[in-house]
């Protein structure tokens, strides 16, 4: 790397009057970065990352905080200078945005003329954090992204790591992974039905949906110890085998969810208010879905028969029989129908797993990936060494690039993983389905009525932890 000219960051070059202590720190940092005694010119040239509190007169954020500058990033459209138009900010604290999404709406009377989604309020730099965590620690991080589908995040990350390692997992681990992700899909869709119902005025749906979801979460808690952020699916397998009596728990769970779903359908399917508020609202065409990267139930509601479980099966999910429900109109109502039908299909898969789950190990036996059982450590020096290496250094992954995607409840969950060798990923990029769904809000909302915003937004099912990461 010999580049020294950096046109875009000249103005941020190090201040010569800076205190000598800071200079020394920067010199040490450069040596640390370059790995040689020779000073590496990166930080001198870019000086990136100085997020320190500046003096009051130099702090650009201060004027915004004190309200002197109103930071409104909505660009006005010079073609329309119309006093009838007004700009409304919806969010980031609006209860119907399911988090901290901000929508700027340009209204003409009650009609929306333009929409701009503004995101980033929940950005916590998880992709950067992943570069400092080992692969063994990675699923703890990714499980917090889409917090309503933690198992899907863990699975995508684990599969990407296994793709780089070139290892398989035992059949029982595959079956457990599919069991947990499909139950997670059920839980996620149930919560979606609950919040969607409440958003458009069916308040009792909120109670019903949470009630059935709770049954799923109870099983997750029994299996993983946690109700969310499980860190259960890990590179090489799963963290632990299913608990004693899990067959009965799952066998009890399935009819409970089914009877709940039947109740929702009784409540909503022929409810004239629900139909009025959802049919023909928030339409997205199949072509727009492809253009904007919209996948999952939203694309299927538009008539695209595409499910990664069928098209690019992972974890042996092609062993199970299930259908891919699709819609026709691409409106809010079809998305409701598709998601309710997907709950039933996921339960079908769970039923088949109950009957066919193989016995055996739930982790890959490779000692470089899986820590040895506690008992082996007392008996074997190699086991002790492997245990020590795994928990100090981590799983060493060969160099390479991997993209792995799975079908999450909101669409394609993808993990783009770059390794340069070593125990930490060089780069982890997350293909978040909610990110694409938020991007597709403008074509769905433009020229619709402001009253339909909430229904459209709810049907897109964005999880802001997934959008912002």
């Amino acid at each position, binding site marked *: *790397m010999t580049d020294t000219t950096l046109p*875009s960051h000249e103005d941020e070059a190090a201040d010569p009057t800076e205190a000598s202590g800071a200079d020394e720190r920067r010199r040490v940092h450069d040596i640390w970065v370059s790995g040689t005694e020779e000073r590496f010119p990166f*930080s001198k040239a870019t000086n990136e990352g100085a997020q320190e509190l500046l003096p009051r007169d130099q702090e650009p*954020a201060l004027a915004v905080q004190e309200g002197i500058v109103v930071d409104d990033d909505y660009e006005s459209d010079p073609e329309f200078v119309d006093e009838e138009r007004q700009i409304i900010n919806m969010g980031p604290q609006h209860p119907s945005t399911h988090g901290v999404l901000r929508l700027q709406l340009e209204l003409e009377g009650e009609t929306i003329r333009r929409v701009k989604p503004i995101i980033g309020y929940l950005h916590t730099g998880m992709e950067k954090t992943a570069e400092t965590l080992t692969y063994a620690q990675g699923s703890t991080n990714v499980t917090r992204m889409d917090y309503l589908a933690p198992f899907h995040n863990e699975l995508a990350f684990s599969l990407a790591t296994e793709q780089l390692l070139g*290892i*398989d997992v035992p059949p029982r681990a595959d079956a457990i992974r599919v069991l947990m992700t499909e139950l997670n899909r059920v839980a996620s869709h149930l919560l979606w039905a609950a919040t969607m119902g409440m958003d458009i005025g069916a308040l009792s749906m909120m109670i019903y949906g949470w009630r059935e979801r709770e049954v799923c979460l109870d099983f997750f808690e029994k299996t993983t110890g946690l109700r969310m952020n499980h860190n259960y699916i890990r590179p090489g397998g799963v963290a632990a085998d299913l608990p004693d009596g899990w067959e009965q728990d799952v066998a009890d769970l399935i009819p409970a969810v089914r009877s709940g779903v039947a109740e929702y359908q009784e409540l909503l399917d022929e409810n004239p208010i629900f139909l009025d508020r959802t049919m023909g609202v928030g339409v997205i065409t199949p072509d727009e879905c492809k253009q904007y990267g919209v996948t999952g139930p939203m694309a299927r509601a538009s008539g695209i028969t*595409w499910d990664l479980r069928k098209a*690019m099966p992972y974890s042996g999910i092609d062993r199970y029989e299930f259908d891919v429900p699709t819609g026709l109109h691409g409106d809010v109502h079809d998305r409701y129908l598709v998601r309710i039908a997907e709950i039933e299909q996921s339960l079908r898969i769970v039923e088949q797993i109950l009957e066919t789950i193989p016995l055996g190990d739930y982790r890959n036996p490779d000692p470089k990936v899986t820590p040895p059982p506690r008992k082996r450590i007392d008996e074997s020096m190699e086991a002790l060494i492997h245990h020590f290496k795994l928990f100090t250094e981590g799983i060493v992954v060969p*160099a390479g690039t991997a993209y792995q995607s799975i079908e999450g409840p909101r669409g394609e969950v993808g993990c783009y993983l770059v390794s340069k060798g070593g125990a930490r990923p060089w780069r982890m990029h997350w293909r978040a389905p909610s*990110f694409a769904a938020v991007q597709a809000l403008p074509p769905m909302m433009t020229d619709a009525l402001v009253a339909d915003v909430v229904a459209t937004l709810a049907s897109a099912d964005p999880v802001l932890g997934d959008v912002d990461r």
Partner: protein
Amino acid sequence: MSDTDPTTDIDAPAVEDPDTTPSRSVPGSEAVAAVVAGFDDATFSERSYASSDVTYHAISIPVDQWVAFAEAAKGAGFDAFVDIAAVDHFTDAPRFEVALNLLDLKAGERIVVSTRVPYDDPTVPTLTGVFAGANFYEREAYDLFGIDFPGHPDLTRILLPDDWQGHPLRKDYDIGAVPVEFKAGSVDL
């Protein structure tokens, strides 16, 4: 265990992706063969998903053919936009990688097209004219890596505040440190 820290092995030779071997015949995919036919500079490799027979194709292309390739891929059936990912390779020149992920829904094929741009000119022409969905993803790459996408309609920060300085997913971005107070005094990190 120096290799656990990616920033310390700066002197290590550039890591070659072991399965990127240029060849003209595309194994296992007529759809991909149709796309790369007009691009002699494209190199590609077939990769397989974990525990699976299903494969996808990784293609790399010079930056000056970036938009033309995306249009050709769209015309050849890879018309579903999925993702744009950026990578800072830091020590391997050219430094930045931008990877476009496309699906052919009819054939059930995936391609990951990547291009590399140097540090002193991190410029990739925008794909918003080909895929409207590139909008947010290019803003994300601009925000986190400082990669410029000329022609983009609204290239502003998306995840970070507008007044943020620097691009934090670059490898030379100082992640900072907090001074640790000890009883005997303070150690300035």
